């Protein structure tokens, strides 16, 4: 084990006058200031309501949606896997028999309480049919009443995927 001697700074006359360090610090801040003043686009701040964020990746877990089959019917088979996996217990499903011959079972009620949801994405991973996804890219969820935060099946089905990916990435 050798001893490493770290060079000590601040003992020279130039350092002890402080003024050089003061001026170099002021130069740094002035450079920032003039750059940001001459072109406010340099500032990374997004002026939110007018300018929407453009850096939402396709792995972003936004509001949920229920996907469709090729014939536009609901893909979900009401297996309850998502509701079982959900750590926040925010998915409420009621199943019914499917009579159109495409499948055996479908949800009659599929509600997600967004106030309970923690956006963990376990439901998406648990789903065996790729029927629930979180790829809508909707990050701002606003409503006036508590009951408006509970999404029903129709609302979930009408949400569109934002990234045009066929396979779920979450």
């Amino acid at each position, binding site marked *: 084990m050798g001893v490493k001697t770290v060079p000590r700074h601040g003992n020279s006359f130039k350092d002890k006058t402080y003024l050089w360090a003061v001026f170099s610090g002021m130069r740094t801040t002035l450079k*920032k*200031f003039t750059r940001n003043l001459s*072109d*406010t686009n340099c500032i990374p*701040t997004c*002026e939110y309501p007018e300018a929407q964020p453009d850096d939402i990746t396709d792995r972003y877990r936004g509001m949920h949606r229920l996907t469709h089959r090729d014939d536009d019917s609901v893909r979900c088979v009401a297996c309850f896997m998502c509701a079982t996996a959900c750590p926040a217990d925010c998915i409420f499903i009621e199943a019914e028999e499917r009579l159109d011959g495409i499948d055996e079972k479908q949800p009659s009620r599929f509600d997600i309480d967004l106030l309970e949801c923690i956006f963990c994405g376990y439901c998406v991973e648990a789903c065996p049919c790729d029927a629930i996804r979180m790829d809508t890219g909707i990050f701002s969820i606003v409503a006036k009443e508590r009951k408006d935060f509970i999404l029903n099946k129709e609302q979930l089905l009408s949400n569109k995927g934002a990234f045009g990916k066929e396979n779920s990435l979450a």
Partner: protein
Amino acid sequence: MHIFMVIFPIFLTILFTLTTIPMLVWMERRVAALIQDRLGPNRCNIKGIRLGGLIQPIADMLKLLFKEEFYPKHVKHKFYYILAPAIVFASSFLSFMVIPYADDVHLNGFTYHIQALPIEVGILWVFALAGLGVYGIIIAGWASHNKYAILGALRASSQMVSYEIAMGLAIVSMVITYNSISLNDMVHVQGQLLFGFIPAWGVVLQPLAAVIFIVTAFAETNRAPFDAAEGESEIVAGYHTEYSAMKFALFFMGEYIAMSAASALIVTLFFGGYQIPWFNTQTMHEHIYLIIFLLMFFVPLTALAFISWMKFNNSCSPERQRETHYVSMLITVFVIILESFLFYLLASGMNPEQNSIFVMVLQIASFAIKMLMMNFVFVWIRWTFPRFRYDQTQHLGWRILLPLSLFNIFITAIVVVVAGV
């Protein structure tokens, strides 16, 4: 006219102190934001007109005005509790009174001083009131009956006492250099030229005194990096911990006026006061038409630069494009009016009285610009440096600045005696 010319400097003082506070608060916040890569407050608006956030101080002021007048129950001496912010505010306000905003104006055989308080002992007045401001802080700390408040008051007062010495000694060397204690005489000296081409500003004549004075002025106004008196990390808010609403606002405004007063004094002592470089009052009277011509040339250029800057940076939404449009129209109209007025002056010729009023207006503008730039330096420094620890502050004051300023007086005195100026 006579009365107007006497009232005018007082009006100017009010303009430079009270109306610059919102400007300074705005500047502080926006400059801080731009230095830290943020935008700062810019969302306050009246029907979509934001003026880059200049509406924000109005909102702040309204909030402070309509806040509840709250008196903590443990405050025993309510009189002193209310008196303290008034002292701080008044003393910083009054120290502004002796600053000369323009050279003496000669009108109809009278000589008018463009100073709210035309006394010869200017610099002593500033000192007296800067010392008085400490009483407000001490009383605030004591009357608040709060440990943090009294700690803040102790820090502020001991810091002010120790920096006042170095400040006074720096000023003594300036007094030796200028051979006068009247601020107006000092500015007169700074209107001359050194070697024929350098403006004889105090900062050129006495760089060491300038550094000492500027550093002590920062400490004296309790501004960063010497704001240990309100170090929120250890003593909450210092001496104004127990104050709220307008009583707090008075402290706040007093602080900003003190900052303005300090920068006015720095400008007066070291940066030529109202003097425009290379154009002292005499030269301006001789070359008045050249100056008007230069103004006619540079004012539209500045306006154009500002408008194009605004078009580039303030057009991200239709609402702001509309605002940019309105403001640039306003500026264009203003520039056209100013240009036609200047053209009228050029065409019709000027008598000596108009001449001296014109020179006065230019000098006031020059002083205002210099003062704002110095205020910007105050803000700039605040957002560049971390706060000094309290013992470091005292170390700097007593063991570095005090000997340096004594040394400076020594050198200055030797130079003055040897050169026999």
